[in-house]
């Protein structure tokens, strides 16, 4: 006697499914699906505000002249060290330059430096991490030792060594910071690749005849992307802080260039009489980095 239970589609999520004509379905494009996941995030006020701030900073990096009509290099001794007001939103520095303008123009150098740093870190870190995670065995062990070595060198000190060797300026600072961030990316990527490699669907793909290349490109990398993207956003903020730190110490672009770190360093001398010269540019940096962190965290929480 065999068991025969007629199949009723009652474990479908939607009850009462009607038969549709065979040619009735259309693939939803990736773009539509991406929009569907993104739109609830945009409705949150905090997220939108953070996004606006970051876009403002990026815009300032690309087209600063559209945001301010002053010349960042024009000195005006008569206006020196005036407090923030309607005429000068952030006040002026000791040479009478409008501080807001210098911050906006400084975005180009600082943001570009941070972008370069993250780009270097992504290429190096992703490459190392994927190689280590995918290859496994001895290659993995050797690469992890290399990462350990890089980790043992504190970020700023490694950067200091690099600028000692190749000189000061925005690009050396960016390279130095980028190299320092590589271990973090490599570790995260490796952990993700290792996790996904053992998941059943990767095994299923291999059993279905997929080559390693196909498995890597279609399954492992797209699924590993999430935590890496979050880390990239967080590290973009960290890179801004690190490049600002290096230029604060005097290793960035030479004056009168308006990097954020240099602006803050400059104002140090006038802390008692005109604190806004240091504090306001710093506040701007805090706003941008905090917004980046908020974006990264919201995206991560949303994905979970």
């Amino acid at each position, binding site marked *: 006697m065999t068991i025969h239970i007629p199949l009723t589609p009652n474990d479908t*999520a939607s009850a009462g499914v009607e038969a549709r004509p065979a040619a009735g379905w259309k693939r939803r494009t990736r773009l539509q699906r991406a929009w569907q996941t993104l739109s609830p995030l945009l409705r949150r006020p905090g997220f939108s505000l953070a996004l606006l701030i970051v876009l403002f900073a990026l815009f300032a990096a690309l087209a600063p002249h559209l945001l301010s009509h002053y010349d960042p290099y024009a000195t005006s001794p008569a206006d020196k060290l005036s407090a923030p007001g309607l005429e000068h939103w952030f006040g002026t520095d000791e040479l009478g330059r409008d501080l807001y303008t210098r911050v906006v123009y400084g975005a180009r150098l600082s943001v570009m430096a941070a972008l370069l740093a993250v780009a270097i870190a992504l290429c190096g870190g992703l490459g190392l991490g994927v190689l280590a995670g995918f290859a496994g065995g001895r290659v993995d062990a050797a690469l992890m030792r290399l990462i350990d070595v890089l980790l043992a060198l504190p970020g700023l000190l490694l950067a200091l060594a690099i600028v000692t060797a190749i000189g000061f300026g925005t690009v050396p600072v960016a390279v130095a910071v980028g190299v320092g961030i590589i271990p973090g990316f490599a570790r995260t990527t490796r952990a993700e690749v290792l996790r996904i490699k053992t998941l059943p669907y990767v095994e299923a793909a291999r059993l*279905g005849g997929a080559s390693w290349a196909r498995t890597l490109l279609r399954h492992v990398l797209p699924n590993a992307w999430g935590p890496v993207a979050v880390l990239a956003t967080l590290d973009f903020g960290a890179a801004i802080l690190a490049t600002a730190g290096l230029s604060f110490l005097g290793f960035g672009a030479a004056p009168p260039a308006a990097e954020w770190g240099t602006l803050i360093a400059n104002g140090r001398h006038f802390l008692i009489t005109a604190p806004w010269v240091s504090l306001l540019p710093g506040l701007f940096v805090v706003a941008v980095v905090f917004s980046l962190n908020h974006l990264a965290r919201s995206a991560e929480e949303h994905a979970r």
Partner: protein
Amino acid sequence: MSQSPLIEVRDLSISYAFAGQRTQAVSQLSFSLAHGETLAIVGESGSGKSTLANALLGLLPDNAHIDQGQLWVDGVDVAQADERTRRQLRGRTVALVPQDPMVSLNPTLRIGRQIAEALLLARGRRYPEVDREVLALLAQVGLDEPALRARQYPHELSGGMRQRVLIAIALAGEPRLIIADEPTSALDVTVQRRILDHLQQLVAERGISLLIITHDLGMACDRADRLLVMKQGKLIEHASPRQILWGAQHPYTRDLLNAAPAFVPRRRPGALPGQAPLLRLSNVGKRFALPGQHAHFTALHDLSLEVHAGQTLAIVGESGSGKSTALRIALGLERPSQGHVEFAGEVVSAFSWRQFRPLRRRIQLVQQNPFAALDPRFTVFDSIVEPLVSFGLLKGQALERKARELIARVQLPLHFLDRLPRELSGGQRQRVAIARALALEPEVLLLDEPVSALDVSVQAQVLALLDELQRELGMAYVLVSHDLAVVASMADQVLVLRRGQVVEQGPAAQVFGQPASAYTRALIEAIPGHSRSVLPVAV
């Protein structure tokens, strides 16, 4: 003299608020539980049984709200009580034996300390004999070497031992009621049976009431004095086991009864004589080298089996028996340490991955966990046709046609091709996995615990689908499972594995009808519903 009931529930309704919406978890439930009675609450996922258990303990999450009704536990209305009063009840009046013993103990505290904590809470303060009582409790719940166990950490004990520790913790406060949450899900069948027997004995000795929360109707009928069947928060049926089995009132209960694979072996025509086996394992053994140690771990020892077209070979075993290793060796994912594997006459055990690849079109796998078997970024369409794309067999229009054909074959609606795995239920995902396995039109399909992660009613549907596909396409199946009832409904040949050794092997009717080994007999007896001969068990 009749006592007032220990638990009295009247018109209880509980709802959850989530993302601005209200979902009703329990609707107007009423029942009572007397002292010393054993009550089972049976329901599938989403029936509200866990919510009820939490409510009794006073452990409802913040977003749960008791809309109406009363919940009297030993004279205290838990629904209206404040946290202080509820805390007094926990441990001392109502105790919990949690579901999964592997994760229910604090991994950084010793066993003895965790039990002592419960004892100290019950007394209210420190007292000198607490250590002795800990040891006494450990002995009572059936643990050997109590002094040693008390000093150990949870990860040093097996699952069964941990479950006993949890029972000891529950008993420590000398409660009037023990809630056993899904006591049969996480452990092997034989272990479960022993522990449940023991629990019932301890409970009977002390006159404690037992409330069993379960999805397993058979087990509930076995052990409870009364049953409550719940569906989506509502009470469907309330009767004694006998009443339910011989005359269930509600169609849902009858469906549950029918869906639970009754232990009825199928009668199928035997293999055609003279046909060569499609897949054959001969004297296969597998040893694993342990990291940092010289000893080897033997996963399989001298396994031989044959699989013929149109037939189902079932491999039965508990965890650690080596059944998954056997599948992996058959698929070429592992090389056997001894013996060889033949597929359609060719010896494949020494093949490299590249050499094996063409054969992949003829032998496929359906994995155990439907929730991780599909790439979360692939639509159903992408997942189903991937094997075809990997082998470059079809493109464009032909590919879409094949996808339509496959999804119809597993009886899912056409527009599901567009969905992502997270939009599907467990049973639907498993069907997609089956469709993917069928894409290459294999001759042998290996099924690793294909239904163990699914609800009972869904299990039946997936099994029926597999049965129909076998009849239509003439595939051979190798079915691996720990659930004898599932195996009995599907298998022609059965192989029983225990710790890597073949304990018994032969036609299903013979293995189940006249089991030769004691282990097989123990497995059969451990099937819920078998022991009290309450369920129709036809052998």
